[in-house]
């Protein structure tokens, strides 16, 4: 047996010498983009929206022959990994995409719980990452390689508080939020801070825990506090429960929400109860024009529903990634150089015209962009009501 094996070892080692000496091919043949999405677990709809929007963006680019970088067209390929809506799943998915699949740039994860650890992996491995939807400041904080596609809680909270006070004339506000989820909690606290700073009073600050379906105890307390407005920065699949139960209990004040309301499913689940409510978001689907309308129509035609905010943000993020790769000028095929080049290009992006508004990245990798307040009209559409921009932007 050994005598037979010996020549094999010799052949193998000879082959090794020859093969390692072989030069690698010049430049990549395609551009790989990794998508780290919540396909299963708590929020599968977010993962679905991410996947669909990314597929539309890639299809658009590839039907035009690919992405043109430095005079050469490259086909774009996306690799979608499920992060199971857990921190360890997001870490594993990010590590796989970055170190195994060797993607040029990673899009996602979406929710902060996943985006924070995924951002850690991206930053440690020096691969650019954009989270379209994560609003927690820590996702990008001290991480030069991590960017995001949406505004942050400390911006959105005051926008909502100001709207409640100025437009709805509220003096007393009630807040109901999920204490075990960082997005609603962050926003609820920012809202409270801003509302109280403006001289308002938060008369009820009630919480529940993720996956709760019954809010009657909290809402009964809120009703007893007689607020002028109820602010509930919850996800679109919890909002119908909250709003319906609030109305059942005889709470009649206006209800105000945040960008997580922005899903076509909201009205399907909520029906008439949500009409007349307001929420702050990235874009208004009803009466959208230009590129935004094009995207909505395309998505609607292909998948049968109006895209959620997460879809729109992912679509924008994809194009930001495309632009950064183009701005890079040339792909060398050496991953380390190309990733660095894309990351630098991302940081330099100014006034990018996306379907969710115009954006410029700050040093932290957070975009400066406007928010819009949307009113749910009697037809159940998300109608533009007012826009609120950070200082220095019109």
């Amino acid at each position: 047996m050994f005598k037979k094996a010996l020549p094999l070892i010799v052949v193998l080692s000879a082959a090794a010498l020859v093969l390692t000496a072989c030069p690698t091919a010049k430049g990549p043949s395609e551009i790989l983009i990794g998508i780290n999405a919540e396909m299963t677990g708590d929020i599968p709809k977010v993962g679905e929206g991410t996947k669909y929007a990314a597929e539309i963006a890639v299809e658009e680019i590839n039907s035009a022959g690919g992405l043109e970088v430095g005079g050469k067209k490259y086909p774009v390929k996306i690799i979608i990994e499920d992060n199971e809506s857990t921190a360890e799943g997001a870490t594993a998915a990010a590590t796989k995409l970055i170190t195994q699949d060797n993607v040029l740039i990673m899009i996602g994860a979406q929710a902060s719980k996943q985006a924070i650890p995924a951002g850690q992996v991206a930053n440690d491995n020096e691969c650019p990452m954009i989270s379209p939807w994560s609003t927690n400041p820590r996702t990008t904080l001290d991480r030069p390689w991590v960017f995001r596609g949406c505004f942050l809680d400390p911006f959105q909270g005051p926008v909502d508080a100001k709207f409640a006070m100025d437009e709805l004339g509220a003096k007393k506000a009630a807040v109901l939020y999920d204490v075990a989820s960082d997005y609603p909690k962050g926003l609820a606290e920012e809202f409270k801070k801003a509302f109280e700073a403006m001289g308002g009073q938060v008369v009820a600050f009630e919480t529940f825990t993720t996956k709760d379906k019954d809010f009657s105890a909290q809402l009964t307390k809120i009703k007893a506090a007689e607020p002028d407005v109820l602010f509930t920065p919850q996800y679109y699949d919890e909002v119908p429960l909250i709003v319906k139960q609030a109305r059942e209990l005889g709470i009649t004040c206006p209800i105000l929400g945040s960008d997580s309301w922005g899903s076509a499913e909201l009205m399907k689940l909520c029906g008439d109860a949500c009409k007349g409510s307001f929420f702050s978001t990235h874009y208004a689907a009803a009466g959208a024009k230009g590129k935004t309308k094009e995207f909505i129509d395309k998505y609607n035609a292909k998948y049968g529903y109006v895209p959620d905010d997460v879809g729109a943000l992912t679509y924008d993020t994809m194009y930001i990634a495309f632009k950064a790769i183009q701005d890079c000028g040339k792909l060398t095929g050496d991953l380390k150089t190309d990733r660095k080049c894309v990351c630098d290009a991302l940081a330099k992006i100014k006034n990018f015209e996306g379907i969710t508004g115009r954006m410029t990245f700050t040093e932290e990798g957070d975009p400066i962009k406007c928010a819009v307040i949307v009113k749910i009209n009697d037809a159940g559409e998300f109608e533009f009501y007012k826009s609120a921009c950070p200082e220095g932007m019109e």
Partner: protein
Amino acid sequence: MTLAFFFQQLLNAVQLGSIYALIALGYTLVYGVLRLINFAHGDIFMAGAFIGYFVATLLVGVGIGWPWGFILTLLFSMILTALLGVGIERVAYRPLRTAPRLSVVVTALGVGLLLEHIALGAFGASRRNLPPLLPETWMQSVEINIMGEYLSFTWLKVLIIVISLLLMIILQVIVRRTKAGMAMRAISYDKFAVPLMGVPMDRIIAITFILGPSLAAAAGVMYATQYPVIEPYMGLLVGWQAFIAAVVGGIGDIRGAMVGGFILGFVQIFVVALGQFPALSFLSSTYRDLVAYALLLIILVVKPTGIFGVATRQKV
């Protein structure tokens, strides 16, 4: 705390508790006969809601509305879910009847997780809600004046409580007054001697798996009318909570499951509600889970076999 506030919370608690109780009954029934914690029960509840959704969509589609639409949805969903339950027992649990108890438990966990992901894979991630089965007015709030303050309720809540109580009474009758029920009780006393008396084990177990899942299906449909979001993971937390309710009441005991369900509902609602008192302001809703589960822990330390549970005598 005013009187209206108290009664409002009481109503909330009773309604939440009645749903917990219905699901808890399913755990307890199966446990009583098979000594099996059927961890798939929460997901059978989910399946019941999904089946209810498809039946209701079909019925509303052909123009059958209130009241027959609702009754038929409830009935069909109960029947189909019972079939599912019997099928699961036949395929997954029966081959393991002589296996160590905990291998069956882990199979049950696996069946539950399998149901969830089949639902996710087959029906997609979209949330659904039942088409309108009840008249609009049933969902709108009605107010009663209690000493100057208003108590609001919907007829839907009343309906849920009434149907739950009705189902519990029917179950009680089946278990207390029929031969099958007698056999079920007998098996829970002694599962070795009873088959020797000529009681057909397989049939009794099948009946148990008809009763439990059909109650879960009824709970699922009512849950979906009150909380209109149907999704693959909806049974997860509710299932665990109902399991807790069943055990706190004394698992294997039918009264125990009902009482346990209501206790859990009351604890969850009143931990939040009592925070209204300045002296109890530490009981804010933030601490709800902390306080609620600490209370359950204390109940079990004081009564180690649950409220109705009889301390099992160990043969020495």
